[in-house]
């Protein structure tokens, strides 16, 4: 998968490394900005309130 991406990037090794870095940063940005905030409430790691188990309150 990563080998395939590397082979399909244009330019010499330096250009490819630079593009790879940009791609990695873009993926991290998308994860932090959109994916993790969406996933977090679905995971049971950060509920702090006591409630009656309705599941709606956190």
């Amino acid at each position, binding site marked *: 998968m990563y080998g395939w991406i590397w082979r399909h990037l244009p330019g010499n090794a330096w250009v490819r490394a630079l593009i790879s870095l940009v791609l990695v940063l873009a993926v991290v940005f998308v994860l*932090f900005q959109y994916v993790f905030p969406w996933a977090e409430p679905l995971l049971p*790691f*950060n509920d702090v*309130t*006591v*409630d009656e188990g309705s599941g709606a309150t956190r």
Partner: protein
Amino acid sequence: MAGTRRRSRNRVAAVLSFTGELLITAGLVLGLFVVYSLWWTNVLADREASARGNAVRETWRTAPAAAGPGALDTRDGIGFLHVPAMGGGEVLVKKGTSSDVLNDGVAGYYTEPVKSALPWDRSGNFTLAAHRDGHGAKFHNIHKVRTGDAVVFETRDTWYVYKVYAQLSQTSKYNTEVLAPVPRQSGRTVPGRYITLTTCTPVYTSKYRYIVWGELVRTEKVNADRTPPPELRG
């Protein structure tokens, strides 16, 4: 014949290496999620909380005096909680305990399942929740709070000084009894002016709840310099 075998072996190798790369990627994503949960949400929440806190202080400074309880604006926050034993400075307190509220690095007072009293009420239980980890982690050090420690709530005009008298280091997350106006689990049986801090425990999980109870010992008028009460000067 030999060519076919080599080709099929290549295909197996390709599938294996693709699967391996997927697994490595999944590991990296999970690692990043930990970084997000324990660090990045704190950065965002602290930034948000300090902006909101400054806005509240600005309102206090500029708002005309004699604004009665009716003029109380609960949307921006009702005051600041100071728990010297936990360190980390002041915590803005806002209405509600939904994640929208708590994720901004504040403590929220309960509106349900048991409605919180407010500090200026003649009796009742002022019940608060905040995150143990991530999103500001305002109650991260709740386990350091001991009996006798001071919990001070600051409003525009008054310092409410509470003293911790009981802790419950682990209870069910469905135990709404701890929020009762008279929290009998803490050992008290008569109405009074109580404060209850709740958060999750053990750290990094949400399996149980950690509870700290305090009761009001005195109030102090805020002076022109907002000199904190002796409990906060230590």
